[in-house]
């Protein structure tokens, strides 16, 4: 497409903009990471080899290509450390997403049934935590959960426990942090689908003899599935790669993949292994996305 035609048709230019964006900010960096993942670590600047030097001539570039290998990926599958990190990340993400759905659904449902003017207020209340920095909010949780923190003080004052409970550096603390941080991402898509659902559908189910729990399982829940899917994806994917929350709130005896990446990059200075771990993570995360897209397309085709 010539420059003149692009200017003549701004609409068409707008249509290719997302692809330009994808190439510049996703595919090109992805190419860099992929290349590093196929390299070997070295005590050098940058800390890997081979390095492509476009000024060194054709034969040098060919030699650099020949030096690439998939050794790092072999290492990832052979070393328990990485396999466990992936497994732990998936288990944490599945558990946390399930908790988020269990907690977020009733909240979203309640919001959608509020009188219209109160719905806006509830919406603001859900979004308001974002106005404070994420990191500060996690540090606030450290304060609440520490040995003489607010939670232990309340539990002691209510005589629910005899001595302070250890919260910090446990999985419980990590789950509290994750659920707290991601709850809006679960609530908002659920609320959006539930709020636009016609109330007469639930009434019709009741009218046709369904007691309230059947109304929910046979009508409300199936019709809210698109929102459930969106909420689950919005939470699950970033939680798998979560670094800050497990690092600050969980113990250090088992790591999530985000933490492992950090260690490889900054402590071990092993960029190639870290890059290959990142690539594997990306592939793992693409699977649920593709599945969701397939499901949505099938729903569209049924229409």
């Amino acid at each position, binding site marked *: 497409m010539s420059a003149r035609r692009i200017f003549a048709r701004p609409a068409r230019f707008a249509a290719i903009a997302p692809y330009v964006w994808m190439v510049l900010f996703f595919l090109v960096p992805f190419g860099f990471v992929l290349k590093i993942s196929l390299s070997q670590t070295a005590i050098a600047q940058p800390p890997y080899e081979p390095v492509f030097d476009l000024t060194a001539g054709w034969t040098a570039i060919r030699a650099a290509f020949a030096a690439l290998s998939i050794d790092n990926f072999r290492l990832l599958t052979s070393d328990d450390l990485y396999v466990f990190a992936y497994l732990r990340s998936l288990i944490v993400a599945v558990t946390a997403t399930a908790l988020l759905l269990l907690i977020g659904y009733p909240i979203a449902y309640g919001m959608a049934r509020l009188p219209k003017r109160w719905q806006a207020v509830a919406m603001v209340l859900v979004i308001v935590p974002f106005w404070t920095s994420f990191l500060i909010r996690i540090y606030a949780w450290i304060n609440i959960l520490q040995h003489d923190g607010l939670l232990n003080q309340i539990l002691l004052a209510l005589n629910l426990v005899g001595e302070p409970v250890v919260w910090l550096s446990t999985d419980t603390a990590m789950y509290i942090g994750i659920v707290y941080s991601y709850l809006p991402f679960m609530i908002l898509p659920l609320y959006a689908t539930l709020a636009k659902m*016609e109330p007469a*559908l639930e009434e*019709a*189910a009741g*009218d*046709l*003899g*369904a*007691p309230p729990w059947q109304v929910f399982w046979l009508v409300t829940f199936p019709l809210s599935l698109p929102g459930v899917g969106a909420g689950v994806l919005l939470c699950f994917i970033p939680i798998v790669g979560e670094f800050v929350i497990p690092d600050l709130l969980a113990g250090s005896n088992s790591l999530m993949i985000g933490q492992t990446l950090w260690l490889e990059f900054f402590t071990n200075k092993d960029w190639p292994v870290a890059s290959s771990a990142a690539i594997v993570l990306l592939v793992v995360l693409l699977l649920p996305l593709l599945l969701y897209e397939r499901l949505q397309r099938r729903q569209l085709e049924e229409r």
Partner: protein
Amino acid sequence: MTDELPKTDAVAGDSQPTGGEPLLRIENVAKRFGTFRAVDGVSLDIKAGEFFALLGPSGCGKTTLLRMLAGFEAPDEGRILLGGKDIAQALPHERPINMMFQNYALFPHLSVRDNIAFGLKRAGMGRADIATRVAEMIALVKLEGLEKRKPDQLSGGQRQRVALARALARRPQLLLLDEPLAALDKKLRESTQGELMELQRRLGMTFIIVTHDQEEAMTMADRIGVMNAGKLVQVAGPRELYEAPRSRWIAEFVGDINLFDAESKLRDGHRLVVGTRDAGTLVVAEPRQPVGESRFSVAIRPEKIKLSRRGPVSEAGREAAINRLDGVIADICYLGGTTTYKVKLDSGGLVQASVANSARLDVDAYSLNQHVVAWFTPDDCVVLPS
């Protein structure tokens, strides 16, 4: 229900159907939303097998009343007896009543078949019985071949049929229909009206329909309950409602009407001689319920007014008691089957007369500014308290 025209005052007692226990008895039911009285002390009996219409302008409380029958709202006062049992506080799924919703409320994730089977499954029917009943319902509403479609793959008329089949499938003692035809275009609406009536008669079921469309109510219902501001203001058959409305408001809400405010009155045997500002002296049949000293109006429907170029010369015209008004044609509205003329009286008042276009050629038609005589008999007038 007889087709005989009842006397003007024969309106008392018509909310109590004669003979046997009613299927549904609504006793003094009231519902408030905040300080707004949506339904205000409504009492009504409905017989088994009746086709009853609740008619009224939007916001009159007819839908709230229907929702209380279905169980979506609980009345603040009063009782709702179905077959002698008070169901006022029962939940929707505990009532042998089904409803057809205004926008059908079909389950978008279920096929036509599963929509119709929904209520049967909830009733714990066996699989074979459900299949039989669903097939029966699909045949009843003529939807063969569409069983596997989802609601959004159907036309408006087809959706309406699914909604009807779904509501009928459980064979409810009472079927509620909330503006069931409002979403259909005029032609489809008219043919569906006929089908609904036919179905109701064939199944011998009791239907209560809510509508704001008086023609729909008059076409379909055995009896019509007119509601205004939360109150049931008249319950009557279509003919009685039209020819003997109980109040000025009802007369104006149901059809068109000419109203003349009375200024004085004089009894003359079986007739009443009434002085009016706009139409001079009118002779009307005396209502059996005396109007007393209260203010009242003389009302006459447009189609009861005859127009002629000269005064009436027929037999009726020689009778002294005929009412005649002189005026000129001020407006002509041709509607196909009828033409509505607005006649400006010499007194300044306007009278609307509706004339059937019984001949194709317009030899009888009047033209603008033509002098005409509008005339009508005392029996065609209704006396209404203001």
